[in-house]
């Protein structure tokens, strides 16, 4: 062992260990972090996962592709619709099915609504983690409006399971378009209010600026994607670089910052909300009448081979890797979860900061635990 390694181990032995989780107000789920402290300074963080491990990858090996869609909802439950879409896109691409343009557009709109809802929840929770409890109610108030749109059209508020290979379960509700427009008009007025309440606050900025800095190289090496990665300058937006659904048809900006600290991860998400609204605005008038699904066989069998599909969920790049033997169930199914990769950088990012900063870093990464554990 090298000297620095010995030094590090000695420090670890002396550390004062505090468990953050599995039941802890700031992990938002059942993640356990064993935090080594020296005073208030974090020496190292050791994640212990598996408290909500359900073996979804194993379950997938027994299920048909239509059934798997419902399992993917339960991964990152805040971007359930996008997860569904990943599996559908994979099946469609593997079978070579071209879905109607109407489906593509509605999928994209639903994706962006999911992203907005998820970012609203994240904003609420980030404020709450830093002690500004009021943000929680502001964020949830507006999120409710999106969930109502989801409920009306898909039947599910949080876990829609609306996508099927080829299209949707059923057609959208006639109210979908007017209500979405109504929401956009409403939320455009509310978003500046978010900034007034939290972004400009001196205490908030002091708590997040320069905290948990991740350079571009580290972000790439740790595979930190999504707004967290883009705040470090890692251009990793799958929507832009490998467009799927209707993302090729719209004009939007990939939010990139170079600072890579908690504050810019926050700002990246706030800006992304504007971009999401821009995307929806461009697409909402282009929904034309037509079929809501492509013609599909009742039993879906993927040809033998290996397939990989990437989509951009709220938290980063979500990947589905399927090995098929030509059966109606996959031979092996793997989900590349963005949160799992983001978690791996947590130890590196929070070393040397205070325990209170850990909370800021964690909420700026926006971890969703069921996606880590799968």
């Amino acid at each position, binding site marked *: 062992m090298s000297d620095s390694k010995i030094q590090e181990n000695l420090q670890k032995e002396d550390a004062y260990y505090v468990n953050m989780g599995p039941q802890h*107000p700031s992990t938002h789920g059942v993640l356990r972090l064993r935090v080594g402290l020296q005073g208030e300074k974090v020496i190292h963080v050791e994640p212990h996962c598996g408290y909500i491990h359900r073996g979804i990858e194993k379950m997938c090996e027994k299920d048909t592709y239509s059934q798997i869609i419902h399992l993917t909802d339960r991964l990152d439950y805040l971007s359930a619709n996008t997860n569904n879409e990943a599996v559908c896109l994979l099946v469609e691409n593997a079978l070579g099915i071209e879905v109607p343009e109407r489906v593509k557009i509605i999928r994209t709109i639903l994706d962006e609504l999911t992203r907005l809802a998820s970012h609203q929840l994240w904003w609420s929770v980030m*404020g709450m983690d830093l002690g*500004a409890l*009021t943000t929680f109610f502001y964020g949830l108030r507006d999120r409710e409006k999106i969930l109502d749109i989801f409920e009306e059209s898909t039947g599910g508020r949080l876990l829609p399971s609306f996508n099927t290979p080829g299209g949707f379960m059923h057609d959208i509700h006639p109210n979908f378009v007017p209500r979405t427009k109504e929401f956009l008009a409403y939320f455009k007025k509310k978003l500046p209010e978010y900034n007034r309440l939290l972004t400009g606050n001196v205490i908030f900025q002091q708590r997040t600026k320069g905290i948990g800095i991740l350079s571009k190289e580290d972000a790439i090496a740790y595979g930190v994607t999504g707004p967290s990665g883009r705040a470090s300058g890692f251009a990793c937006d799958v929507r832009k670089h490998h467009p799927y659904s209707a993302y090729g048809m719209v004009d939007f900006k990939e939010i990139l910052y170079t600072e890579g600290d908690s504050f810019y991860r926050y700002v990246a998400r706030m800006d992304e909300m504007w971009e999401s609204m821009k995307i929806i605005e461009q697409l909402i008038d282009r929904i034309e009448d037509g079929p809501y699904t492509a013609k599909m066989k009742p039993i879906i069998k993927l040809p033998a081979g290996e397939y990989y599909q990437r989509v951009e969920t709220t938290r980063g790049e979500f990947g589905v890797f399927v090995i098929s033997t030509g059966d109606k169930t996959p031979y092996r199914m793997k989900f590349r979860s963005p949160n799992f990769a983001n978690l791996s950088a947590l130890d590196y990012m929070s070393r040397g900061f205070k325990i209170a900063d850990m909370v800021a870093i964690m909420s700026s990464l926006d971890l969703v635990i069921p996606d880590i554990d799968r």
Partner: protein
Amino acid sequence: MAIDIYDFTGMTSAIHESLSAVLSPAATTIVEMTIIGIVFILFYALVGLFLVYAERKVCAFIQCRLGPRRVGPRGIFQTIADFIKLLMKELLMTKNADKFLFNLAPFIVIIASFMAIGAMPFAKGLHALDFDIGILYVLAVSGIGVIGILLAGWSSNNKYSLIGALRSGAQIVSYELSVGMALMTIIIFAGSMQLSEIVASQANGWWLFKGHIPAIIAFVIFMIASTAETNRGPFDLAEAESELVAGFHTEYSGIKFAFFFLAEYMNMFVVAAFGATVFLGAWMPFHISEMIPYAEYFNMGMDFIPGFIWFFGKTGMLILLMMWFKWTFPRLRIDQLLTLEWKYLLPINLVNIVITAFFVLTGFHF
């Protein structure tokens, strides 16, 4: 002056005289102290319950909610229901906790907040303890509370509690300085540490207005520092729930937790009342300058509002301000908290005291 219409001196001295007529002087003192004690306990419970209710309503208002509505009209009995629930809950204790200190801690915290109320001038003549070092006394007893918090954190045998307690220790010890220094400004202006004299010196105007710039600076510092001293947001690091679960009272349940909870609200009341006394003239009504035409009629109208309404109104305003802080600001970090105190508030305070002294010497105040 028309202030005397709501004078309680007559009432209290009548009670005193009628008691001395039947009892020996020693017995009189004991009976009087008992009466005052009972009155204060009742007052304490009432104010505590009301403040909890008020906080829930204020917080609900800020957060676009309705707050408690079910128990009683507009939910006013909600806190009583909560209190009964807390009374009936099981008292839990961690294994290997220091039993004696663990049980002692909530009492120290609550007694400290209780003692300070005694020195508050609620209205003219309603003043239980009035001695020449009133300010020093309030500062001293409110400082005792930190011992209870430290004991609670230490004896719980819980890591979160210990970190919370040590944070709280560092925080209260630091901010005690600023509170004291801010009060020093008014002591210099009023030339006395006796609370009744400080109040009397504000008969022709509150110190916040009479002392202009230095007093306003001192008032702002006092509000910041006293919010920190009561461990309330944005300075609630001792119980920072997103980091330390519930800080020093993580392991407390039932009525012992209720004690901490009540003490927090009473501390808030104490510092607000103290601020109202020192800066806003306690029960003194709002008067405008005689130079303005018809000012005497306005002042007379103000005099008809009873003193205790003025006192509780001012205290309520300051409490509202503190609640507003809590529900809009994020929490500071421990090093930022100490930086704020030692690098900003304290030097500003010291300079402010010098300015005050200069103003008093040159008579450059009203």
